[in-house]
């Protein structure tokens, strides 16, 4: 019962219409080739005249060049996600909150990694995106803490405490894994049983599958042993169930690629996968592209559900990643061809 009260009623018409209007303001696909032909100051200017105006203006006093763009993008992402939380009510609000915990996890990982390598607080804060439940002020105070114990105490009341309770400095991968698992198990539990929500569940499960496939590719390529790989995978996927994950993690590279053919994702990546592939960039870009296409496809099945909102959040994040890829690539003078391969459109 408490669960029902927390979710409240279904107030989708307002938020979905608003999100669709917001989606129409994202950068159109044609802009990216244009951005590729520009220098960084030109890109900053173009971005500063678009939806990012407020962020670029605000930060222009403190930063310049690439830093300015980088910070404006981060701030805009956080601002957009916070806006979604602000303008939604009841059930959509609850589901968006759960989805955005992704950024809490991201921030906690960033802070712990930074602390691990002794990075200064300011540098850590440059990389956080305050889009989740932990606001920028809380994150600042956490990033300024010296000892791991203080950080643990500060996160004592959050659901993430369970993952970091036993952390005492050192190797982070286990903690990061645990955080991911907490995130996805909460997300899966948050979604109810109605028709539209069943589709949302399918979407989240597909997202888990794609994440698992990426992890499998990376760990196989790095030559990790079976048990270590299985530890890194997230249970609860759509096609790759626990048994499949166990089997896949034990297969050697060539059999693993063959094993992938049994799943529907294979048709998406079959073109670029080969036994002697050296870079995973193409596979990951294709999987991201598939996730985006899938989200936008199912967002039309049940317009009055959380799906159009997931679709928008994914697209916004992708837009920011694309702009960042272009400017970073330009900065280190990568050839256009490689930058283009990294873009997900």
């Amino acid at each position: 019962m408490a669960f029902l009260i927390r979710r409240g009623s279904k107030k989708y018409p307002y938020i979905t219409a608003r999100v669709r209007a917001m989606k129409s303001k994202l950068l159109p696909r044609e802009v990216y080739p244009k951005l590729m032909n520009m220098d960084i100051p030109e890109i900053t200017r173009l971005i500063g005249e678009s939806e990012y105006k407020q962020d670029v203006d605000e930060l222009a006093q403190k930063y310049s060049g690439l830093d300015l763009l980088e910070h404006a993008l981060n701030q805009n992402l956080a601002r957009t996600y916070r806006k979604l939380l602000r303008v939604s009510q009841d059930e959509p609000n609850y589901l968006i909150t759960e989805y955005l915990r992704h950024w809490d996890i991201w921030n906690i990982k960033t802070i712990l990694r930074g602390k691990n390598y002794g990075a200064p607080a300011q540098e850590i804060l440059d990389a956080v995106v305050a889009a989740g439940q932990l606001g920028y002020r809380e994150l600042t105070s956490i990033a300024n803490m010296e000892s791991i114990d203080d950080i643990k105490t500060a996160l004592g009341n959050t659901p993430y405490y369970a993952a970091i309770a036993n952390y005492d400095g050192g190797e982070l991968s286990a903690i990061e894994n645990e955080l991911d698992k907490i995130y996805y198990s909460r997300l899966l539990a948050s979604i109810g049983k109605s028709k539209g929500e069943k589709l949302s569940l399918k979407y989240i499960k597909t997202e888990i599958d794609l994440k698992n496939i990426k992890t499998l590719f990376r760990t196989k390529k790095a030559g990790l042993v079976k048990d270590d790989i299985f530890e890194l995978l997230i249970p609860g996927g759509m096609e790759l169930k626990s048994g499949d994950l166990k089997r896949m993690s034990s297969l050697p590279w060539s059999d693993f690629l063959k094993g992938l053919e049994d799943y529907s994702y294979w048709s998406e990546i079959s073109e670029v996968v080969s036994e002697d592939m050296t870079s995973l960039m193409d596979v990951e870009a294709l999987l991201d592209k598939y996730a985006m296409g899938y989200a936008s496809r199912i967002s039309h099945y049940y317009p009055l559900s959380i799906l159009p909102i997931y679709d928008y959040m994914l697209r916004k994040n992708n837009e920011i990643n694309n702009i960042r890829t272009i400017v970073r690539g330009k900065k280190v003078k990568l050839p256009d061809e490689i930058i283009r391969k990294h873009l997900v459109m």
Partner: protein
Amino acid sequence: MVDINLVEAGIEQILANQAGLIAIGAGLAVGLTGIASALAEKDIGAAAVGAMAEREELFGKGLILTVIPETIVIFGFVIAFMLFGIIPVL
């Protein structure tokens, strides 16, 4: 012998009852369709305001789409009007 006055009174009563039932029907026609339009407009209105909050130029379209379910209540009104036409004059 049948009392002619009594019969007339009876007929009048029946006519009055019929008129009353027709009037109730007309009332239901307007009332129920009003509720139906309200239910339909609730979501459309909310969506229109949501879209307008992001893009002001959608005001015109939003307004038109919001009042489209108003046709339901117009049908109800027409039916009510036709029903009123057949109420026997007392």
